[in-house]
């Protein structure tokens, strides 16, 4: 196939898939939570309640797009766009199958870290520009939580980088042909997954939007599609972290019999379900416990993981 056409097709299909997955997850999460909590969930509209997705989109688009007269209007309108752009752009470096990525650049992992930390701007700008007390409280919590967990999110991945010697996600997948990094880097996997929960601000790390004390946190004043785009951003973020865990720790597209893309999607969907199961089963900690967990447990753990991995790799290679 013509390479230019191939790239264009990849971009179009990826964007369509991301939007579909993000809106399907609104339904999927409610159905799965209902399953685990012994309820029905949305099951009325269409087969299995799937029509709920369309109904929700139509409803959100028809809602009033209110811009508060007391808000910083320009910033208020940009903030929800930032989270969508940041999380969706990060997908550009994820290899879905051999050779199937928008751009599998040699700084892929750094690109992902940069893009995922951009979403903190969205939350900060949204909370500050809303000029509302709940929004400001929620966004302050979100900022300190996200920057704290970001410090060791990057460090937890460095074990993998030491073993592979590359930031390119395609190389990292190929290095797992003999053994998935989930085993030698189990600690890194756990730390990264927890950091992913915190970065996407999901239960148990959803204190920024803890609805029983802060109404909705930083998106209290948002309505219509702007409100929904924070949720779209969250679901794209969940998919992003699931696909990153798949790529870095679970062998990416590698697997027997089935085609590579199917393996990738299968592993990612399972991880998304795990994200939802965590939400369905864990309570919310106190804010000081959350921050203490980050700085006092996760950061030393990821540093230890890094040093031990480095020593083992060097000893096995017989380096001087």
């Amino acid at each position, binding site marked *: 196939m013509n390479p230019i056409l191939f*790239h*264009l097709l990849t*971009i179009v299909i*990826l*964007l369509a898939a991301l*939007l579909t997955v993000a809106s399907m997850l609104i339904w999927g999460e409610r159905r799965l939570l209902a399953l685990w909590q012994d309820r029905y969930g949305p099951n009325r509209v269409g087969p299995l309640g799937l029509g709920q997705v369309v109904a929700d989109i139509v409803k*959100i*688009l*028809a*809602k*009033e*797009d*209110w811009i*508060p007269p*007391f808000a910083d209007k320009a910033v208020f*309108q940009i903030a929800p*766009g930032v989270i*969508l*752009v940041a999380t*969706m*752009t990060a997908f*550009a470096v994820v290899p879905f199958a051999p050779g199937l990525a*928008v*751009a*599998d*650049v*040699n*700084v892929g992992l*750094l690109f992902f870290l940069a893009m995922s930390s951009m979403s903190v701007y969205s939350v900060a700008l949204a909370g500050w520009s809303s000029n*509302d*007390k709940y*929004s*400001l409280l929620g966004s*302050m919590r979100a900022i*300190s939580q996200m*920057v704290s967990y970001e*410090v060791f999110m990057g*460090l937890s991945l*460095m074990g993998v980088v*030491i073993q592979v*010697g590359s930031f390119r996600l395609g190389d990292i997948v190929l290095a797992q042909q003999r053994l998935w990094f989930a085993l030698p880097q189990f600690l890194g996997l756990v730390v990264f997954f927890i950091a992913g929960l915190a970065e996407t601000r999901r239960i148990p790390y959803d204190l920024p939007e803890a609805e029983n004390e802060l*109404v909705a946190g930083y998106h209290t*004043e948002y309505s*219509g*599609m702007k409100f*929904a785009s924070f949720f779209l951003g969250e679901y794209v973020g969940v998919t992003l972290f699931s696909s990153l865990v798949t790529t870095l720790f679970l062998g990416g597209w590698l697997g027997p019999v089935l085609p590579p893309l199917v393996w990738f999607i299968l592993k990612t969907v399972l991880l998304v379900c795990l994200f939802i199961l965590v939400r369905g089963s864990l309570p919310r900690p106190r*804010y*000081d416990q959350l*921050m*203490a967990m980050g*700085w*006092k447990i996760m*950061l030393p753990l990821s*540093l230890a993981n*890094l*040093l031990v991995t*480095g*020593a083992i790799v*060097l000893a096995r290679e017989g380096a*001087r």
Partner: protein
Amino acid sequence: MPGLLADGVELWPLALYFVAVVVLAGGILGLSYVLGERHRERATGMPYESGMIPTGSARVRMPVEFYLVALFFVIFDLEAVFIFGWAISARQLGWAGYVEVVIFIAVLVSALVYLWRQGALDWGTARRAGADRDRSGRRHGDE
């Protein structure tokens, strides 16, 4: 500048993808602006404060811990970036590089232990070092 960052990977799809994402996000938000209803009533333009009439400015004062966390982030994330640089070339640097990074991380960890002992990582005042002294030694009547 082909080859500078890409080594074999074309970069224009990345740029095009970014533009497409921006257009898509703008399109979704714009569509909602066009399609959404509009209404104007007595309380429409008020900030939401659980049904109360809003009081005072929303620019409330924040606990200083948030500011501390921002500072720690700058320090520790910057050090993390140096560690990234070692991790990518750990094999080429061998044991000499390893010893150097151990020293670097030891400095980092001692800073963390210092902050921990000082109580800078604790929220609220109860367990912070010197909290008792503060409580007894605070001068009243300053406000």
